[in-house]
């Protein structure tokens, strides 16, 4: 049976043969961020894939990874496309460099994990909060439940972390 749930008015479906995504989102539902780690390369990868991008190896383990990182870049949407986001603009999609494996295996690589900017209690960030976030902001992962056994990862400002004085933002506000 596919896992299916409604999330902000969108129907999200994971087919039963899609075991990589079933496991990834299943761990999220338990409040755990786990990534595949290639047995040969010892390298983590995101998002879930069927083989290791560095060795092509199909064997892997799901290992827990700390959901902390730094905003690498972002999209800040002011004109919504999907009906589900009509009432949500402006909203941010963050591309976050995880602290884990940053700069490996080469210096330009990182585990860059996407998600919306949410408040610590899981609501879409209000406009004042959006204006405080940019490249360099320290963030931590939060999860939003879709249905039983299915949650998706998002990001919130990490209040315990040291924050840059002026995270980089698009200059024209």
């Amino acid at each position, binding site marked *: 049976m596919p896992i299916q749930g409604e*999330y902000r008015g*969108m*129907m*999200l*479906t*994971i*087919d039963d043969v*899609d075991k990589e*995504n079933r496991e990834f*989102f299943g761990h999220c539902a338990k409040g755990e961020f786990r990534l595949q780690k290639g047995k040969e390369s010892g390298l983590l*990868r*995101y*998002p879930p894939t069927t083989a290791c*991008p560095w060795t092509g190896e199909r064997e892997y383990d799901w290992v827990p990874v700390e959901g902390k990182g730094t905003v*690498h*870049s*972002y*999209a*800040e*949407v*002011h*004109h*919504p*496309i*999907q*009906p*589900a*986001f009509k009432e*949500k603009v402006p*909203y941010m*999609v963050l*591309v976050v460099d995880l602290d884990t494996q940053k700069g490996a295996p080469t210096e*330009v*690589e*990182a*585990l*860059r994990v*996407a*998600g*919306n900017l949410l408040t610590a209690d899981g609501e879409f960030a209000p406009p004042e909060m959006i204006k405080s976030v940019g*490249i360099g902001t320290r963030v931590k992962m939060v999860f939003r439940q879709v249905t039983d056994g299915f949650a*998706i990862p*998002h990001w919130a400002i990490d209040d315990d972390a040291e924050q840059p004085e002026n995270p*980089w933002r*698009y*200059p*024209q506000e």
Partner: protein
Amino acid sequence: MSLSSVNEADTSTEKYLRGKYAICGIGETSYRRGSEESTRNLATWAIGNAMKDAGMDAGDIDGMLDYSGNDSVFAPHVANDLGIRLNFYMDVHGGGSSTEALVGIAIGVIEAGMCKTVAIYRAMNGYSQVRIGGTGARSAVPIVGDQIHHRAYGWQSAGQMFAPSFLRHMYDYGTKPEQVAAVKVAHSKHASNNPKAYYKQRLTVDDVVNSRIICKPLHLLDCCVETDNATCIIVTRLDRARDCPNPPAVIQSVAGRVCKPRGDIHLHYQGGPISTVAGHYAKDIIFPNAGMGPEDIDVTGSYDAFTFTAMLQLEDYGFCKKGDGGDYVSSGIIELGGARPNNTSGGHLCEGYTHGMSMVIENTRQLRGAADDSCPVGPDGKKQHTYDYAEGGCRQVKGAEVTCNMGWAHPGTGSAMIMAQDAR
């Protein structure tokens, strides 16, 4: 074979087919919003125009290639309508990185003896049926599996997906919105000299940066237009092309769907640098294979789904130093009258949206010396170009002998082609 060994190869050998094939025919429909025609009818119209342009009838065309996102029409249907019996066809999935890639495939299948002449087309109701921006029917498509990693975040349209690369370029290199807006200013100037263009009004940098924000850093006027149209080019061997009424645009090299490491639209962010695009790799194929460099190019056709896409490609193909794209596009070089104009038709920002083919059509016209709708025809039947680029004037580039097209799928994937005038 590794990329480096390709570059070290003797590119004058038969294998590279440099200068052996040409575009001999070009055709298009009008560029409109609300075509009130099926994509099948649009395709028939554009291919028919390209056949007329090439002086060919149904018996001269025996191959077809086309691309779409399931929003076009299959080749055997159009071939049937035009009375063409095909020896080869293929309908492929794809968008803006398709035209140049399919030219390469056409050369390959002709070389293999599978057919003699290939019509390549793209037919789309990009405004009235399947909106490229993802609005309308496309926005309500169910979200399944891998798509959850982006579409569930409201990260779906091209502008939304590319934005992190654009912003990171501004962060990495200090690129300014006003510099990038100069792409729109240049292309609107070109469009004002192109009666076919959907948007013909000349715009200023202020017009662009004061238009409303769609998705930072993209203002409304940083984004291309959505239109309904079809386009077609015909590829054949140079000796056959020489029998056609118009001068051939001779293909010097092609690169097709060259990718960054992990080059998928959703995966390339894992590699990086995310402000580098696939042209960084494609340049090492097209320039050595053509036996020339960026300095030899007279006119560029850098894909302008957005102002930023044109700039990033011009930079990563080596028309300026990495990071200097903002300076390059705001220097006047890319405007008619500048040293190396880009998209002299007005491109996707102004003329109409065709998933790249119209930019190859325009460069073919430039090489023919026929990219002009206003100058008088002389006694020899040719346009007497004034090279006066004032509004409503000439758009032929003086001395346009070599062109470079740079197709774009997304930051991680691109295609390219160098064409030249017939040296005979």
